[in-house]
């Protein structure tokens, strides 16, 4: 058995013991906690000991290419916001030899001004070859009872995968990130199917979380009584986005989700598809209708510096013909701010600039871990965009 202790420059203390089998992990963790407490009691005044906190189980599934370092860094952020028991699964199903190896560690964040450190714990399991198939059976006994369990599937969901299915059964909520989809539309279709087939499954999409500020600002226009009537009389809706790094020849998942959200909330249906071609996504234009009134939705790819960024939507515009009303929300070039503007008739434009907080993946994951119920608005958005964009192709 090999034990390693370290404290990085941010003050995060990590104690690791490797080479133990899964059944002994709990005992090893208990020993580590005792050691942490004993160590903290011996520290100088001001470092007031440790508090073990566990508000959730977090199962992280990552393909071998992810590597431990990135996940460890991310879990440090998660612990800071949501102390939990993390069970990290690094699986290489293609390996020839079956192997199962595990590590345990405690992860402590210094408390403010000498307050107790807040500590979570982590179990990392590396599985290879056929051992991957039975990985879920190693996970279940490690989950702390009576607290919510989240599965962060850090890969494109393999819906037919037995492991995925088992882990979904163990979880109260599954977190995915559609920004990593290499075929956003077909992958969203699979998400829609997954949700439809698992009525108890609560699904989170980090990419949907990135749109929350956008949705809030766009909805904000129609909170204003003087603007509200224009929502039902729009002539054009334009969504501009930069091409996603994961799928440079595809429509960005964020643009699709935003279009789906508008369509589902506002009852949009397809009137006619003027043009749709996944191979040429400069501008896809859809003729839609709602309450018997037709209008145009455009999804337009624009050049931008943010291609590697997880924020791909650049601007959303709503307009009525003849300049009667125009509303827009636009991302700044440096992607730190959103600017809004509303102009009705001849009045001057009323707008504002608000910060767009670029959250890290860990922060976004923590926010998702505050939620348990199904996000029906997301589910309906996915279903709507799949329905609208796929309809002409199937007809």
């Amino acid at each position: 058995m090999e034990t390693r202790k370290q404290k990085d420059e941010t003050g995060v203390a990590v104690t690791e013991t490797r080479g133990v089998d899964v059944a002994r992990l709990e005992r090893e963790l208990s020993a580590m906690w005792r050691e942490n407490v004993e160590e903290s009691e011996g520290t100088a005044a001001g470092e007031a000991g440790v508090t073990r906190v566990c508000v959730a189980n977090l199962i992280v599934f990552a393909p071998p290419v992810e590597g431990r370092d990135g996940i460890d860094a991310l879990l440090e952020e998660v612990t800071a916001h949501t102390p939990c028991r993390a069970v990290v699964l690094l699986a290489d199903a293609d390996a020839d030899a079956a192997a199962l190896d595990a590590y345990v560690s405690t992860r402590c964040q210094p408390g403010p001004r000498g307050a107790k450190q807040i500590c979570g714990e982590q179990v990392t399991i590396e599985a290879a070859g056929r051992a991957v198939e039975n990985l879920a059976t190693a996970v279940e006994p490690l989950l702390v009872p009576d607290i919510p369990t989240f599965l962060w599937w850090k890969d494109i969901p393999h819906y037919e995968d037995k492991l995925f299915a088992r882990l979904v059964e163990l979880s109260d909520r599954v977190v995915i990130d559609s920004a990593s989809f290499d075929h956003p539309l077909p992958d969203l279709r699979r998400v829609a199917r997954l949700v439809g087939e698992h009525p108890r499954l609560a699904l989170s999409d980090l990419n949907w979380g990135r749109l929350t500020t956008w949705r809030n600002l766009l909805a904000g226009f129609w909170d204003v009584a003087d603007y509200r009537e224009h929502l039902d009389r729009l002539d054009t809706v334009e969504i501009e986005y930069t091409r996603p790094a994961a799928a440079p020849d595809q429509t960005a998942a964020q643009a699709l989700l935003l279009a789906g959200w508008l369509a589902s909330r506002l009852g949009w249906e397809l009137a006619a598809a003027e043009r749709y071609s996944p191979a040429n996504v400069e501008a896809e234009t859809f003729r839609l209708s709602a309450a018997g009134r037709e209008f145009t939705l455009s999804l337009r790819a624009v050049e931008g510096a943010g291609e590697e960024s997880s924020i791909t939507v650049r601007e959303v515009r709503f307009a009525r013909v003849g300049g009667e009303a125009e509303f827009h929300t636009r991302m700044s070039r440096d992607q730190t701010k959103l600017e809004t503007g509303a102009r009705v008739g001849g009045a001057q434009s009323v707008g504002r600039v608000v910060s767009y907080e670029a959250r890290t993946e860990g922060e976004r994951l923590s926010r998702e871990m505050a939620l348990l119920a199904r996000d029906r608005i997301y589910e309906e958005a996915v279903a709507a965009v799949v329905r609208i964009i796929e309809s002409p192709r199937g007809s």
Partner: protein
Amino acid sequence: MSATTLDNPLRAGIRLERTTEPCVVVIFGATGDLTKRKLIPALYRLVQERLVPAEFAVVGASRTEMSHEEFRARMRDAVAQFAEGGIGDEQVWNSFAEKLHYATLDIGTAEHYGPLAELLTRIDAERGTQGNRLFYLSTAPSLYSEAVAQLGRAGLARSERGWVRVIVEKPFGTDLESARQLNREIHQHLDERQIYRIDHYLGKETVQNLLVFRFANGIYEPLWNRQYIDHVQITNAETVGVEGRGGYYEKAGVVRDMLQNHVFQVLSLVAMEPPASLDAEAVRDEKIKAMTAARPFTPERVRADCVRGQYGAGAINGQGVPGYREEEGVAPDSATETFAMLTMYFDNWRWSGVPFYLRSGKRLAKRVTEIAIQFKSAPHQLFGQEMMEQVTPNQLVIRIQPDEGITLRVAAKVPGQVTRIRDVNMDFRYGASFGVKLAEAYERLIFDCLLGDPTLYARTDMTERGWELVMPILEEWAATKSDAPFPNYEAGTWGPRASDDLLEKAGRHWRRP
């Protein structure tokens, strides 16, 4: 949530935050301390959090002559100094600063309200604020009535197309009669639904969590009564003295300053029955029902169940501090109480016979506000006296500030071959479990007012009931002020010995927070 947000199909979905309707916030007393320390930082935070719309503006109003630009510069300094995150992004600040305006206004001068009305009309046209107004009276309390009357006479207490709300700061009156008089005068121009009497304690996260804790958990409410609870302690302790406000404090004292408003609000949340809904009026109805059941104080009860105190010189955090009578603006023979302890009873089925011990004071050992629910001992001492000697009855402590959280003290076996029992704490701390910064009380309360939600504001009947309850205490203490053995506690302690003695006579003792 306001009617317009309900009418907005894009607002559906719990993950979208509530935002307010377009409006103008007018701050009377815009050059005062509260404006720069709390109000503008809170409003800027709401802007940063995107909780107010673009169609939003702030007008500072005060007697000082000042341009809009000067006001913006002052408020920028205030935000830089007092807002937790400072200015943050310059463009976001600039966008907010454009919405800041200033009006020179003497509250008592009727001619000043015409230009204010014109400014508000212009802002409505330019910024789309739709005639909605929130007037924040951050002025001397003696001006509240005059300010409302002037607003009424100028036609500003009503809006042709929007709403008008008025936030009134504490203190709301100085005694029962003045509170009633103030209510009468304000009601001449405003409906009760327009009046928001602020008590910043109600904006604190843990106070709000009291409702959730009591009524969202199935396990506590069945125990929340005379059958299981021995007594309740509410401690509201400050380490600071009068901080240069000796003149004000001499006329106030801790009962007027803290107990009859903040502590009573907290008390009512502990003692109330479950409301039928979370509707503001339903919650406030239950709070006043509980306070109506509070047993009135008679002179005899004041002498038997209450303790007053005034601090002498002592030390706080190792630093020597002067006694109250040595503070600036304080009479050398002052009889003003800086500490008060009250024993309260509620004459109803739930609380019959259960004492509620309340204490509040300045220059106490530690800054802390907490509620401690002391449960009764187990009915049968199965483990014998020797084993139980280190064990005290179960206690539930709800910490309001600082370090907000909830602790449940339970007995547990000490590991070993023999059975020994010791108290252990089950701890929930906001900071640890949610990892988020708690919103400032003013931020939450102003936001609620903008949304038109008065749940966390005091209603007329509650303010008057608070005064009704404390008036006999104030009168008895005033009548016997020459008997007050002041100073009777050393700064940096937990108040006068008599406060401990009163509990000890009942076989109880104050918890050391």
